[in-house]
């Protein structure tokens, strides 16, 4: 009997979501786009400045109360240089890092740019503890990609 060939059924979804940013997310992105400022939210209980800004503190389970402008320099807390490209993300190699900006108590994730990511050079070029500064896009759209980090 002839061997039947097995096939797959390819399916492609194209779904658009409209996620509400709320007051906190909206204000953060407006200030980033219009004033080139990075704003965190202070928890009244633990007094930490939370970045990205949160409308409430997970730990204390209370509303955050104040906006605090954080610094545009900080310290790398964790990083990875990615050597594999993924759909919708930058061409490899690229670097993402959690950076503790001066004046913030929690680190924020973004790209680190302007550095040679040849594997052999990675340890000389970046590490946990490396000081970095924020660079802003000239044309800002109110998105996380409106800023990134460069070596300070």
């Amino acid at each position, binding site marked *: 009997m002839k061997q039947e060939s*097995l096939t*797959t059924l390819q*399916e492609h979804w194209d779904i658009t*979501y409209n*996620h509400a*940013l709320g007051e906190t*997310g909206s204000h953060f992105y407006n200030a980033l786009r219009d004033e080139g400022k990075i704003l965190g939210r202070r928890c009244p209980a633990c007094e*930490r400045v*939370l*970045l*990205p800004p*949160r409308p409430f503190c*997970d*730990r204390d389970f209370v509303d955050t109360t104040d906006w605090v402008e954080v610094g545009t320099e900080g310290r790398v*807390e*964790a*990083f*990875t*240089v*990615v*050597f*594999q490209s*993924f*759909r*919708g*993300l930058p061409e490899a190699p690229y670097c*993402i890092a*959690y950076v*503790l900006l001066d004046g913030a*108590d*929690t*680190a*924020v*994730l*973004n*790209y680190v740019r302007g550095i040679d990511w040849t*594997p052999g050079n*990675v340890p000389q070029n970046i*590490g*946990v*503890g490396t000081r970095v500064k924020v660079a802003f896009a000239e044309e800002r759209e109110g*998105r*996380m*990609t409106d800023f990134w980090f460069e070596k300070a």
Partner: protein
Amino acid sequence: MSGAVGIVGVHQEPYGENYSESTLEEMVFRATRRLLEEAGVEREELSNIVTASSDVTDGRAISNMVMAGSTASYFKDSINLSSASEHSFLLAAMQIMSGLRDLTLAISWSKVSESPVDVVQRVASEPYFTRPIGINAMTSYALQASAYEQAYGPDRNLISRVVVKNRRNALDNPLAHLREAPTLEQVNESAPLSWPLTEYDLPPYSDGVCVLLLASEERARVFDGPVAWVRGMGWATGGYWMGERDLTKLPSLEAAAKKAYAMAGIEDPLEQFDAAELHEASSYNEIMQYEALGFAEYGAGEELISEGVTLPEGKLPVNRSGGALSSNPAFASGLVQVAEAALQVTGRAGERQVEGARRALATAQQGFATQGASVVCLEGE
């Protein structure tokens, strides 16, 4: 604790790269059918079913509806969980402990070959701040490894020896996905994929199904074979925001272990367990788990590797199955660790059996960089 709970059946299909010869529904049906046959149980005898699966991986939402026929759930009590595969086991065990149910299937699966897994994982981030930059399992565990490396400066040779150990262990596991063991040199010299992790430091992605049959003490006595008794269970969810966590430690795993050890009466895990199956999301992560589980002080996890403690012939063999570095049915991996620990304490682990293993530990992790974790302590007879 009211009623005791025992694992009376385990079935895993061989883990592999691509189960393209069958549909997801067939794959799960086949594994569940075989477990019932091996255990000598009719579908009608089951009190209920708890399944766990990832809707985005499957491309099927509320999947216990679509999977009802495959999971023996037709006109049965069936609940599906999306939080973690081993949560199906934990809920099933609690249902039996409560006395409400007495013979329960816990089932989890992943057919990762049907979707772009690294892309799909990005949906696990919140969409406002993290998803636009993009992290997935690989990069989250690389970020974790970078923080650990800075804090403790582990010896890269010892990290690589975790890979060599687990991949060699997989040679004895006929179900394992990767059954070729690299040399230490190959691991040390491999190119970075997500710095500081290389391809060898990270699990593969496997298709697979894992099915466990749990029974109350009364029902368990009816089965002929040995029973893996559940002595302790603990689980914890840590904070979502990676930027506020101490990435050099695994606090959710530590919290889960504390609860499970208290329930099981474990005071010195290194002395009291005979085998451990850890859901190691990376080579570094296995060392970090040694520390969170109390096998070693913080920063001293690598000593268990240098002293051979976790080798098959060591005091506490870890990942005798080959672990996730050898077989990783992504979402279902946590349940696999529980299954492998059950096989160890019932003397059913075949070539990968740890001689005389009576007490075993299983761990699992969920979310990015160990946000959540579970610990299960099992004991044989």
